[in-house]
């Protein structure tokens, strides 16, 4: 599975838990993701978190594409 697809799957899973994706960055030996909270009322959040938890698989893949883009990337919309 291509790295960008794995990243998109992980981002989608986290966004389903009430976050908005900001950026992904490849760092030395690690990678990092930033999310902001999606604006939600307490009731909306409770409803979002009451759904079955998504599977959050660790990303395993190729970083070369990201590095060639300056180490920063957004998954495709």
């Amino acid at each position, binding site marked *: 599975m291509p790295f960008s697809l794995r990243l998109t799957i992980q981002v989608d899973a986290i966004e389903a838990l009430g976050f908005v994706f900001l950026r992904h960055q490849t*760092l030395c030996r*690690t*990678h990092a993701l930033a*999310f*902001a909270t999606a604006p939600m009322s307490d009731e909306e*959040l409770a409803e979002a978190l009451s759904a079955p938890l998504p599977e*959050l698989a*660790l990303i395993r893949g*190729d970083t070369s594409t990201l590095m060639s883009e300056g180490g920063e990337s957004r998954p495709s919309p």
Partner: protein
Amino acid sequence: MLVLLRQTLGLAVQPPPPQLAAGLSAHLHARLAVGLAGASAADVETAADSLVQQLAALAPPSENVNEWARREGLRVARVLEQRPDMADSLAQGSATVEQALRQIDEEREAASELFETIAGHHARLRDEVSVDWGADDVSAVWRAATAEQAALRTYAEAAAEIGTREWAKAGIAWCAEQATHFYRGGGARRLALREAAASGADDAAAAAAAAEIRPGGEGGAIRLLDVGACGSLFAPCEGIEATALDLCPQAGAAGTLQCDFLQLEVDADPTSRRVVAPHPDVRAGALVRVPAGDADVVVMSLVLSYLPQPRQRAAMVAQARRVLQSASPARRGLLLLVDTMAIDRKARKWSEQANLHRWVDQDGQSGRLGEAVAGLHELISSHLKASGCPPHS
């Protein structure tokens, strides 16, 4: 004549130092000179000459001198490129190649023990927490798996050692930078404008909304919760008020609160207060309850990969969302995740070598060339296995 004179004088006859092949000598000289380039105030050429001579003299009699010197010389050169302190010592003559090799071996052994501790603990968690997250008894299973304090302490010491590595610190620095950028560098404003554009609202309203977004700490400080902290890593960061949490805080991490983040109670009432209970082994105590919106930022650095179950990782993220919740439009929280990523060099089979597959496929020659690369990969793997090296080393 000189030998005769020495024998006459009763001096032991020293065999001449072994000579390296000229090409190898030049190659090692060049590689070592690159490694020594970082040394301060040193004559790199002379120092590299000396290292090559030392290598030739050090080769054990039972080994082929050229093969041994090549192997060990390149090992030293690789380390020198990463270690200016060792380059300094060798360039100035305060350490010998023999001492450097011994130090490299000792450090490698320590790193290997560290790896075994971390990997062994992760494997044990995977074995013990094999139930599907979401089952009724899963919390009990997790608590039981993490109840053995001696194992946790050993792991915590190893994890703290990892936390001192430059690459681990780079992740912490990235988180501090992101938090500062979001609240003080226009990040929140850009997000609000993007969301306004998507929803069809006008820019002026979005800009006004963005201007309201601010962190909740006193004096505008960013309140950051460092989950799975190896200590007060954010303490030097200006404008960040960090709270360090760990399943098993180290004895030296005086400010770190004991907390199993998955078990942390989140009070929906934002006006409630944090509850910290005394803990027999942790001076700072155990964090039991926080109000919703207690933090502006939740950081999980090298945490999600600690958790063996995909849904358990999602549960951690959901818990972070509860902690960050605020119904106020002026509060937008941040979740920052840093983790390791397994890439192809860890692949153990050809089928896992995505990089090589891609390279082969680029030219549309995935047939014979693919087979050739697969064969080569198998050959290298079997050779490494026979020589006792793990395939990913």
